């Protein structure tokens, strides 16, 4: 593997971990606006997100037997940019069109969180799969942890005071898409369906941002 490629994977690991944690925090903030109890929303979202992350990394074993790691990665990132980028308005929708029946009233608003968690859980094993070098694998793990930590600082200090929740989600979805597109550029035989996926994803992100900001 060339030097710039391993650097690109490291940067991606950092950014994807940062984005994943930020999705989690954005969804927590959205849910707590509707469920009321901030601490409960925090615990429920983290619980479901962590479970989905784990399920995602387990699902990796099954997916990798059928498809190539790069194809899975591109699809995962496109899907994540769609679901993550629109996570605020979908969480808003599920929260405002909720039932009173327990535990459905808790589970339904958490659907976007579980989808984002599931897709995020697939990212790290896939990045590891790109590099078979044990030394770089450890670097990827480190980039992942540092990314999450920086994300935890960026949300309260930079993003929340300056941007609306739909705009934060859209920004994150757009970065997801950009990372995926960078990998896509390296493929020789470009798949038309994937290209269409970028177009659809980009449109959904823009639309989510517009609709979300209309709710303010």
């Amino acid at each position, binding site marked *: 593997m060339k030097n710039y490629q391993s650097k690109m994977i490291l940067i991606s690991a950092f950014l994807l971990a940062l984005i994943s944690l930020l999705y989690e925090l954005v969804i927590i903030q959205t849910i707590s606006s*509707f469920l009321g109890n901030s601490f409960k929303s*925090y615990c429920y979202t983290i619980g479901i997100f*962590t479970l989905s992350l784990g399920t995602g990394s387990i699902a990796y074993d099954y997916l990798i037997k059928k498809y190539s790691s790069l194809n899975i990665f591109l699809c995962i990132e496109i899907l994540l940019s769609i679901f993550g980028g629109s996570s605020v308005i979908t969480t*808003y929708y599920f929260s405002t069109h909720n039932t009173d029946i327990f535990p459905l009233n808790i589970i339904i608003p958490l659907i976007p969180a579980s989808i984002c968690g599931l897709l995020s859980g697939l990212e790290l094993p896939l990045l590891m799969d790109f590099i078979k070098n044990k030394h770089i694998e*450890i670097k990827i793990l480190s980039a992942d942890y540092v990314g999450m930590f920086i994300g935890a*600082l960026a949300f309260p200090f930079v993003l929340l005071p300056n941007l609306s929740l739909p705009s934060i989600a859209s920004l994150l979805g757009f970065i997801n898409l950009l990372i995926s597109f960078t990998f896509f550029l390296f493929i020789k035989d470009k798949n038309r369906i994937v290209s269409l996926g970028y177009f659809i994803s980009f449109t959904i992100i823009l639309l989510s941002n517009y609709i*979300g900001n209309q709710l303010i």
Partner: protein
Amino acid sequence: MIYVLAFLFSFCSLSYKYLILKSLEIFPNEVLQQSLTLGIYLLFLGIGAYYQDKKKTTLPYMQLKKIEIGLIIFAALTPIILNLLIIIYNSYLSEIFPPSSQQTPLIIILAQLTIIPIAFFSGRELPLLFAINPKKISHGKILGISYIGGLASSLIIPSAFINLIGALKTIFVISYLNFLGLLILALVSKSFTKLKLISYIGLSLIISLCVQIHENVNDFTLKTHYAKIKLVNVSTNDIKNYFKVINLHQSVHRIQTKYQTIDIIEKDFNKKVLNLVNTPSEFTFFLNHQQQFSSNYWRNYHESFLYGALNLSKIQPQNILILGGGDGILASLINKEFPNSKIDLVELDKKVVEISNQHSEILNINNNIFSKNKINLHFEDAFSFLRKTTSTWDAVFVDFPFPVNYTISKLYSKEFYKLLLSRISTNGFFIFDAPIWKDLEKSSPFKNYAILASTLNSAGATNHFAFGPIEPFIFVSKNPKNKIQFDYASIPKHKMSNRAAINLNKLDTKPTKSDSKLANSLMAPKLLY
């Protein structure tokens, strides 16, 4: 057994994280705390796993037992450490870094450091569980059970334990659960010698000892918080005197409810100290560390609230709604003024009403209003009550705690005011106490006022008026054509204390700007603290 251990260990680890976070609610900015806790926890969980990966795992049982012992001891010490940190903050650092200052994040970060050892030890657990895996169960399954343990913690901790015994005490419950995991591990490893048995008994005694120490330290911590006495110098003599003075205070009566922490400061709380300086003592009622009313100053606030609104509105309301105000003070005043009007009161926390219907000091103030069956009580979240109801009211009094966090801030949002406005009759009004005076402590004057005015305007409540240099309120008339101004001649002086009359003045300073970007909304929340 591996499954049981994987479940227990991840349950305990995530529970510790949640409980430490909950214990730090004394500091403002819950979003910063939630984000930091999550970031630090995940970072050190990863570092722990990485460290374990690098370290040679020759005796995995032994290593895991040592880690569990370390984890249990540190977890049992955590409530004491957190209490000590809060005591240091209350006694000395709060002068340098007041709760609303820009530097407060530094204190929050300091308190969050307690999460590091817990995350680090927890990060080492899973690789060791993989190593001791005797039947070679797939790692995926162990990982799956571990995630389920985390999910169980996320569901059980906020719903069950905390509501019963509070966050800090729950840490001890989890320590005992962790201890149970250690015993199971010892049984699995078949290394239950007499010496080890004694050491395990010793460990359980350490936890019990920590529980006892915590009880005393926690009582002292609460006293330091409410005594409002600060250390000027950090000398041995000053610290000794500080401890003496704090110990002269009576214990704070704390009640943990499903929704909040209620602290009751009885009149004799600082009687011994105040006797020394000849100052009258007072009864004070706190919700989540925020003062709601006190026996000496309740008139000023509640009379301004009611008579200010009536003087501005010039109407005789037939249907009155009170949102919040479970102490019954405002309800009592309203009932006295309009004995034939229909009064509804919406309170989230039933316990507040129960206390207000039992405590002699509160009964003296609210005239035992809840026993008179004059008030229609609704125990519900105000937002969902307004969403469900189809009734309308002539007057709505909004008596919520100040929006010190994003959760309460939603009750000051554009969406809330829009909903509220739709439940008010054509010539009706609503009034709420506004955290405007907080602006005076800040470098940007009337920032909160600008946010509130912009929020009201964007909700369609354009006809509003702010008054009260002592206790500020914002009065909103539904009819945009109604002229809002005080008729000072008609203020019922015989019904009001002097201080309240002084409070009925229009706030001179207008918001510097009012635009939709400043509006507090659920999608773009703003903190007003």
